[in-house]
């Protein structure tokens, strides 16, 4: 399942949907949840953030990443949800889940997906500090 959405996501529901029908086949599920934290990469304070995205390309890029991961590891299922819009401290931003027969494939694919998503998926973070000043997060 791949989703780009404004609304929060329910980790439990996504997990249930991922393993439904795969009982007995799945040996492990790996998960990464990215959250809004109260400090930036440079250590400045963060009060909230807004995520901008490129509608259409964002979904396609996530699909391309999953295709790539599926060529490298034997995955039985995946969940990739990325949010956009206004997000408060502590809110979830991104969810990556991978299901496989063996833990190594699930863990490696999950790590691959979140790392590559950060450099390829067209999303941009605009942080706001406690004084209401905005700044774009610098990409690499």
């Amino acid at each position, binding site marked *: 399942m791949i989703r780009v959405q404004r609304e929060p996501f329910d980790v439990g529901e996504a997990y249930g949907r991922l393993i439904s029908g795969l009982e007995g086949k799945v040996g492990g599920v790996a998960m990464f949840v*990215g959250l809004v934290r109260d400090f930036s990469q440079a250590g400045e304070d963060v009060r909230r953030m807004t*995520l*901008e*995205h*490129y509608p*259409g*390309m964002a979904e*396609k*890029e996530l699909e391309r990443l999953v295709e790539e991961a599926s060529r490298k590891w034997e995955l039985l299922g995946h969940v990739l949800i*990325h949010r956009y819009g206004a997000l408060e401290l502590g809110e979830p*931003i*991104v969810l990556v889940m991978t299901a496989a027969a063996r833990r190594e494939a699930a863990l490696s694919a999950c790590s691959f997906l*979140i790392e590559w*998503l*950060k*450099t*390829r*998926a*067209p*999303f*941009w*973070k*605009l942080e706001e500090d406690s004084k209401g000043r905005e700044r*774009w*997060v*610098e*990409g*690499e």
Partner: protein
Amino acid sequence: MRVLYFAAVRRSIGTGEELLDLPEDVKTAGELLAWLRGRDELHEAGLSGRVCIAVNQEHVDESTRLDGVEEVAFFPPVTGG
């Protein structure tokens, strides 16, 4: 051609989308970027830093040809996740 801008590039130029007729000598994504930079001060400023390019919603480099292309996007390095 539909030209899209996102994030800091969009804010700097002041719009997220333009419909443009390109000069005939603009044949690659890099040539389009150079042409856009030369249009006015807002474009020059918005597109001055490191700019990533997507053609028909796929990452490309500046050498990519634009024959038959409908949508090109320019944006800063991505920061999702």
